[in-house]
């Protein structure tokens, strides 16, 4: 088996031991050799001492999702050794710290085991417990580099960049790399048959997580107010926004900030702040996760009814309740679509990767202001917190923000009278005035029943008039939201529908199924309400597999509910164990359905 550039490396460590930087170093070194990579971090909801894993998929073919294989396991955590050994795919390698003897009972005939005395090597070379632990992690990078033929010059260059300001760290890190590298070269035939060779497939790419990309997108979109309450896995989104703002949003003349980030006391306050700022004309947003959406729901309904532009990033994690905060799911689709009491429904955007997190940020603000309604961007932990290889981000310098129908002082001055909720243009979107602009623009923003003129009402017809007009706006939204990514051939009778982070696994599954002569069409939905393109796609097929990452087929429910899709055609393929979905799951499920007699 001489697989070149098709290897999955999994590293088992203890969290809080510096393994994250070692793993990052390993992945970036491969990336810099021009070989596409996928990185997945499986970490506990804990600060120090619990097991954590990092998986690097080296994929010369450039696939985006995780693989369900493990070819090289670096088992650095004694606590999980048994389980890690069991995880190795047949024909794979297991690397372990041979400083201490392994129990003889822990053996597998179908894998190769390589012992490297990491602890002993590091204890002999470094002083102090902390340094020895940290360097042990760097040393395995060296060993893997030798085994897989990763260019040591690339690794060293990366270390030099990382520790540019701390030369002594470069020295000790390089020393640790060499310990692992040299030991492996002296004791094992290197490289392994399964290894890495330089390519040129990453030169226009970067490695970025979705939260960083979304924070960057918000900064580029001109957001000025961010309010939030820390919650895994969305926290790093605001961290990123703040970091970019501290670099690009400080007024050179005064040294003062042109942004305002408020850490709220809870999610109820965070969303209240977003509404207050948006009502006052600022682009404002909040990042959160499922529990935050639950807390924000009352205000989300208010924003829907009082028609206040609101941007929310929901980086979904595994529910229900506290669930598994460091595991991924797409489980907030329904709670976001219909957040709040009463008849409410909300615009959703579904980025599939960090690049789309960036590009959908300005779209979210444009749509929220154009439609005067909440817009929720449904990312997830897999997209938000994992490092993805994406094409370098581009910004269109001709972009002009769509601030929607906001009346200027002059327009107000020239008006006879301003009425906030009047549908002048027939698109269901009324005109807005901002406080402090003109006395004629004043109105009373309320969540209570109001007439189309903006006055309080308990009159049935006047109330109904406004909620019916909101449905007109809903149809306007349907027409202007981002279209689905559709790959269609009329030869195929069956299709796959997915959203968000299901994209990578589905695309790869389509390739794998094609190799078995099973050809399916594909529709990756990017927004809700669903466009006519999605309705048409479903109509054109006998069977549509709906691939999503939750237990209850929430996307499928939404399709039936929003566009009256024929539910007998919609076959749910559900992945909800908290791990990112992989192509093997999709392939197996589709094959099982076909075996049951479904159309392919």
């Amino acid at each position, binding site marked *: 088996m001489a697989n070149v550039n098709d290897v999955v490396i999994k590293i088992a460590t203890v969290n809080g031991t510096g393994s994250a930087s070692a793993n990052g170093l390993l992945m970036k070194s491969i990336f810099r050799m021009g070989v596409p990579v996928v990185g997945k971090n499986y970490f506990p909801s804990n600060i120090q001492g619990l097991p954590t894993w990092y998986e690097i998929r080296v994929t010369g073919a450039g696939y985006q999702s995780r693989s369900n294989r493990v070819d090289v396991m670096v088992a650095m955590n004694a606590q999980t050794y048994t389980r890690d050994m069991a995880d190795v795919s047949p024909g794979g390698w297991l690397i372990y710290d041979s400083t201490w003897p392994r129990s003889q009972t822990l053996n597998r005939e179908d894998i190769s085991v390589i012992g490297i005395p990491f602890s002993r090597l590091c204890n002999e070379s470094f002083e102090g417990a902390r340094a020895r632990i940290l360097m042990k992690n760097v040393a395995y990078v060296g060993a893997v580099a030798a085994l897989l033929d990763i260019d040591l010059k690339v690794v060293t260059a990366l270390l030099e960049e990382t520790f540019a300001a701390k030369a002594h760290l470069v020295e000790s890190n390089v020393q640790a790399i060499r310990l692992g590298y040299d030991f492996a070269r002296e004791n094992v035939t290197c490289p392994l048959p399964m290894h890495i060779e330089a390519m040129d497939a990453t030169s226009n790419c970067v490695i970025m997580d979705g939260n960083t990309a979304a924070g960057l997108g918000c900064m580029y979109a*001109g957001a000025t107010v961010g309010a939030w309450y820390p919650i895994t896995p969305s926290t790093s989104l605001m961290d990123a926004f703040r970091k970019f703002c501290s*670099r690009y949003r400080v007024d050179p003349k005064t040294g003062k900030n042109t942004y305002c980030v408020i850490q709220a006391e809870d999610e109820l306050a965070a969303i209240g702040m977003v*509404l207050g700022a948006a009502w*006052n004309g*600022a682009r404002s947003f909040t990042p959160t996760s499922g529990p935050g959406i639950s807390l924000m729901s009352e*205000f989300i309904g208010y924003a829907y009814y009082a028609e206040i532009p609101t941007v929310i990033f929901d980086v979904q994690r595994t529910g229900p309740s506290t669930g598994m905060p460091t595991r991924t799911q797409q489980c907030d689709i329904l709670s976001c679509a219909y957040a709040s009491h009463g008849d409410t429904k909300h615009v959703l955007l579904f980025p599939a990767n960090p690049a789309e997190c960036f590009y959908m940020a300005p779209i979210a603000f444009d749509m929220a202001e154009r439609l005067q309604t909440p817009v929720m961007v449904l990312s997830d932990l897999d997209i938000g917190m994992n490092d993805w290889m994406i094409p370098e981000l581009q910004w269109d310098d001709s972009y002009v923000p769509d601030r929607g129908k906001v009346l200027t002082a002059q327009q107000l001055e020239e008006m006879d009278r301003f009425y906030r909720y009047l549908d002048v243009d027939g698109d269901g979107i009324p005109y807005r005035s901002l406080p402090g602009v003109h006395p004629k*623009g004043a109105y009373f923003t309320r969540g209570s029943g109001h007439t189309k003129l903006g*006055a309080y009402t308990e009159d049935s017809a006047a109330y109904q008039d406004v909620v019916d007009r909101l449905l007109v706006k809903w149809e306007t939204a349907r027409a202007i939201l981002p279209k689905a990514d559709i790959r269609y051939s009329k030869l195929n009778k069956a299709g796959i529908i997915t959203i968000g982070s299901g994209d990578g696994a589905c695309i790869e599954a389509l390739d794998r199924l094609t190799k078995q002569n099973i050809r399916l069409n594909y529709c990756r939905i990017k927004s809700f309400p669903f466009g006519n393109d999605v309705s048409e796609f479903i109509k054109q097929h006998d069977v549509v597999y709906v691939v999503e990452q939750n237990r209850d087929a929430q996307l499928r429910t939404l399709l039936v509910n929003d566009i009256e899709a024929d539910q007998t055609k919609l076959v749910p393929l559900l992945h909800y164990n908290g791990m990112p979905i992989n192509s093997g799951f999709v392939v197996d499920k589709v094959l099982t359905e076909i075996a049951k007699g479904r159309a392919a």
Partner: protein
Amino acid sequence: MSYIAKPKVSHPGMPRNKLGLTSRDYEGTVSTLCAGCGHDSITAAIIQAVFELGVEPHMLAKMSGIGCSSKTPAYFVSQAHGFNSVHGRMPSVTTGASAANRDLLYIGVSGDGDSLSIGIGQFVHAIRRNVNMCYVIENNGVYGLTKGQFSASADIGSKPKKGEANNQEPIDPVSTALSLGATYIARSFSGDKEQLIPLLKGALMHRGFALVDIVSPCVTFNDHEGSTKSYAHTRQFYHHVIDMDYVPPAEEIKAAYAKGDAMPIEMHDGSTIVFRKVDQDYDLTSRASAFKYLRERFHAGEISTGLLYLDESRAEMHELMGNIDTPLSQLPFEGLNPGNAELKKLQKGYR
């Protein structure tokens, strides 16, 4: 409610403020509260205060939550935007609004249920952030719209119309605000317009969080014998501690000085608060002694009123955060976006 049109009649001889407006220009729609409600007197005092200050109507933002109190922003300054938010959440909306536009004058009107029960989290955190706003609590000790349940400000022993007397310790917004570091703290009574108007003017002009807790009897559910928030009870136990007057910038300070012990404190905008101690033991600039005094008087059953604490030195939210003077909502997009060339440059760190 506000579908009742209010005739705009103004007498030609009515006094005009520096903008040439009369107090009529600061009115709102007709109140739908019960006849004799304390809140309506507070509304009248707010109208008078903003009229006298010469506030540009559209530069005022009227914020509220839910409850009888929170309806009142509809009843004053129709030419100002209002935000009648959700229950107990006015402080966060005001915080966000202020973050977006620091040039507006924010008045938040809340009640004891809205601020001390459902909304106490937001109330205390707005103080902690020192949001630049005038925060009015129309305090009547009961929930009116749901027909007379006690709120968290009900005093021990206060009797409801029906049922048992309250036996839980009340939450006093004034001592709460004092312990949290609010920079302008006042208490008054809806029936004492003379005291209330200058307190509101000072609160509106103060830079930072200004609390005005106003005992405002609920004539329908809490104005009977045995209630400690009734007109009769308040009048009997009501005690002026410090009287104050607000003197705008450039206006000569005269009236108050004559009585001997009047003292001025200059505010950040050049205006002055002239205060006169009724009780000589009181020091409105010392948090510790104010706290001790107020708790002692509270336990003696007295309602201490006036400007109870003032700190003009502390920075408000925007200053604490180092925000630019221009309202964030008015910054042109060009200055907010670093452009594609910079995007390319910054991504070098992601390779």
